[in-house]
């Protein structure tokens, strides 16, 4: 928040276009995210919010434009995917924990198998992260034995255990019961307050308003406008933004 806006962005998207068949989901997205920033992407469903996130870690290849994460060019065909996904973590709407692995294994397996870090060191880190997510006694449970909110906090710990520079949160509370939304949001907030760069796609307007440094509003594959939250929620200039906000607020 205190970083000056002219510092070099950690993530930058320029003219990103993506089509699924004849349907163009992204029609020229420009976006800059600086280190330590918390950016929220909001907008009606089908507007391409989740696709933007998935292009940043290369899960969805793009048709046109450029995406840079630090010095990594995501659209490079010779992209080192391990290097990219070491720097960019992701948390999914449906948690996507591995049901055949215990909670501890879920959190620790990628750093051990992909980054080849020593098991003991990774497991110590994983236990510490689980404690921070207030799940210290769940290390040996299987994901299916946990509530949705607990599973999502494990998923956050799993992303953190890779020690990324940025984490993408894809509607992480959308599949949760209302009483579990709060516990997951406070976990996300903790991650953000610890200085992690976060990009969140969310329908939680209240959360976006207080936690984000910057809000992007997308509609039909373009970014209609972006602004700091105070400005965005009170003085939205575009009629599409105003219409959306009048429906959700």
């Amino acid at each position, binding site marked *: 928040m205190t970083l000056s806006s002219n510092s070099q962005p950690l993530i930058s998207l320029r003219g990103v276009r993506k089509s699924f068949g004849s349907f163009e989901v992204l029609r020229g997205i420009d976006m800059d995210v600086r280190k330590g920033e918390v950016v929220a992407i909001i907008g009606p469903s089908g507007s391409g919010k989740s696709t933007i996130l998935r292009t940043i870690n290369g899960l969805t290849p793009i048709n046109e434009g450029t995406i840079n994460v630090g010095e990594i060019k995501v659209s490079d065909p010779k992209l080192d995917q391990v290097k990219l*996904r070491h720097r960019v973590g992701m948390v999914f709407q449906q948690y*996507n*924990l591995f*049901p*055949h692995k215990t909670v501890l294994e879920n959190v620790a397996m*990628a750093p051990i*198998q992909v*980054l080849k870090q020593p098991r003991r060191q990774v497991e110590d880190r994983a236990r510490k992260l689980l404690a921070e997510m207030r799940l210290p006694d769940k290390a040996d449970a299987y994901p299916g*034995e946990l509530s949705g909110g607990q599973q999502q906090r494990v998923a956050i710990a799993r992303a953190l255990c890779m020690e990324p520079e940025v984490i993408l949160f894809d509607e992480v509370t959308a599949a949760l019961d209302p009483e579990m939304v709060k516990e997951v949001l406070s976990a996300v907030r903790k991650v953000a307050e610890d200085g992690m760069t976060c990009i969140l796609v969310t329908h939680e307007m209240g959360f976006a308003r207080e936690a984000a440094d910057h809000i992007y509003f997308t509609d039909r594959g373009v970014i209609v406008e972006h602004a700091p939250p105070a400005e965005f929620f009170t003085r939205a200039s575009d009629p599409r933004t105003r219409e959306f906000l009048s429906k959700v607020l």
Partner: protein
Amino acid sequence: MITDIQTFFRELAASGVNLTIFYDAFDFDRFVTGLGNTLLLILASSFFSIVIGAAGAAVLTLSKGPAAAVVRGYVAVFRNTPLLVQMYFFYFAVGSIMPVGQNEIGLPQPLIGSFAWAVISLSLYSGAFNVETFRAGVGAVHSSYEEAALALGYNRRQAFFSVTVPLALRFSFASLANNLVDLTKATTVAYAVGVAELLYVSNQIWSDSLNTIEMMNVMLLIYLVLTGAVVFIINRVEAAMRLPGFGLGDGQ
């Protein structure tokens, strides 16, 4: 004890139910040999058919190239032609062009005998079905799990083996049990190439002892027990691998 059993079945034979295998040592030996060969056929063919099925499904999932085409061709041929025809083809057509060795008294002896041909043939036949079984299991695993693995830096191959395969296996058991029950029953086809399995020895026994009806009943019972055992074992493995909150029959 054994004499008691023999006496009992001799007396039973006198009253019209002639189960020679329980009192005649020669018939008993033949029968045990047959049962042993049937068990060996089941074990060996099950093992190789599962290996073939797993490898084929992995190729179909990971490769789009000529390797996948080979697997699809293999499945098409072995799933869509009769097992007996396949076994004859291996034993008489392929077997006849294989090199022939000599046994210790100088007689020609094929390098691959009838038992080995039966295992090869049964494994390839059942393996074709297992390819489809495991492929369906892979298809039943939601792609979001693979995606989560990719997002953690796994490549496609690592994600397949670390995440998709263990979950796919759990979706495959019901269909795999079907295939292995079918394989158990199909071992009787080895009779046609002269493997001394259960049906073969039973045929010899009822030809000598003229107890066809009794031996038919014994056969039916034994195959019921064998298939029951196969299903029991698979169910136990499935239960041992069950995961909380995942897949079929998780109790939720």
